[in-house]
């Protein structure tokens, strides 16, 4: 069953067209990745799904219902969650407040005490720092808060935009571990990454993007085997 179904969407920033007619889908419980060069349009794709970038054309469906054209808060209310590029925490709020904002919506509000506990059990580090303001955390800790905050939303699909960016190797591994763990627990995950090696290892399925178009797809293994894709897009 398709949790996310994207049909020939285009996005423009003023005169610049960032996405050209792209289509793809994510099935329930899958970990799907989107990779590609810088400026290929990966972030734009995620934003388009969330309603942060208006569509010039095309359609996006979630569990069979159309969500394109919706404002971001409504999309999020459907259980679609984005862990944005650059973390985007609330800098003056404490770690715990940041997490609680995650449970702002009704769908998550009721069980927030319970989810909070879960998040803390995944990231014990955050429990230690619960009363520290977000801006004073190290990069890796901030990334944990961002992920934790997304989990607080009780998501159906969780989308990551370069979660390993700027993290130390140890942290990168930890983040990937968490993603895989979430995957194991049955969450649907859509991952945008530059860390191609590691990404291809963990995904069920993968799309390759270039200049605003999808130029290749397949399972991790297939892509790693495909010589043209290796050379042209993965720099392997």
């Amino acid at each position, binding site marked *: 069953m398709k949790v996310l179904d994207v049909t020939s969407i285009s996005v423009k920033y003023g005169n610049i067209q960032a996405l050209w007619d792209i289509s793809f889908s994510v099935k329930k419980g899958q970990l799907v990745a989107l990779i590609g060069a810088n*400026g290929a349009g990966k972030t734009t794709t995620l934003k388009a799904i969330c309603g942060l970038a208006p569509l010039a054309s095309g359609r996006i469906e979630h569990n069979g219902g159309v969500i394109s054209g919706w404002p971001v808060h409504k999309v999020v209310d459907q259980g679609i969650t984005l862990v944005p590029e650059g973390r985007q925490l609330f800098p003056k709020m404490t770690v715990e407040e940041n997490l609680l904002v995650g449970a702002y919506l009704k769908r998550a509000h009721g069980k927030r005490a319970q989810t909070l506990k879960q998040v803390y059990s995944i990231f014990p580090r955050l429990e230690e720092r619960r009363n520290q303001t977000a801006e004073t955390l190290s*990069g890796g800790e901030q990334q944990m808060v961002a992920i934790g905050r997304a989990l607080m939303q009780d998501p159906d699909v969780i989308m990551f935009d370069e979660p390993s960016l700027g993290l130390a190797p140890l942290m990168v591994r930890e983040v990937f571990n968490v993603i895989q763990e979430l995957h194991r627990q049955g969450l649907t995950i859509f991952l945008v990454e530059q860390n191609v090696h590691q990404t291809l290892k963990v995904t069920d399925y993968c799309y390759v993007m270039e200049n605003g178009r999808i130029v290749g797809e397949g399972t991790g293994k297939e892509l790693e085997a495909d010589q043209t894709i290796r050379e042209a897009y993965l720099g392997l």
Partner: protein
Amino acid sequence: MAEPLLKVNSVTKCFGGLMAVNNVTCQVHEGEIVGLLGPNGAGKTTLFNVISGYYAPTSGSIVFKGQDISGRPPYDLAKLGIGRTFQVVKPFAGLSVLENVVIASFLRHPKLADAEKHAWRILETTGLADRAGIPASGLTLAGRKRLEISKALALEPSFLLLDEVVAGLNPTEADRTVELILKLKAEGMTILIVEHIMRVIMNISDRLVVLNFGEKIAEGTPAEVAENPLVIEAYLGEAAA
């Protein structure tokens, strides 16, 4: 051995109670590429800020070309030949790519026409010439990172501080940047670089300095450092090396 180009003498930098950099001593020699490693929040960027004059050290001193430069403002250091990039790239968003680089060129070329000529040359080296006319805000992340390097290069520095200029780039892009760095080294530039991507840092650095919680925990050639148990524990993790 010749007198090092840059000497960091027991530098400490505190923010309130937090010791972001704690009694760090290290050196960079002429023509060398030194990599600065460490977990997130180890104090790398802070040390960069101290060296480039954004912070005065709480204690200790920075000696550049035999001159004590601790506490001197960044614009003076730029004149002395220290160029730097920022981890969070901040181009002059409303200005064109060319204008961004022209501004940096004024340091050595005070006339507008000369500065423009110089800026074009730099943009050609860094591969941004075809985007010279667009506003800097229209660049992709890779473009911005390259613009960041272009601006630092336009200062014609003898010493370059690069803060995560490869992070966020895909492998192809990253390789191009590495090429550029190596080319600069071949031209005699001295470089201090922060980067988390092992593939990059291990390959280009002559020497590595590793920080953890503000303190220096290791120093040496990439091979030495990669073996260092402290570094493995704090930074690389078991599976590495």
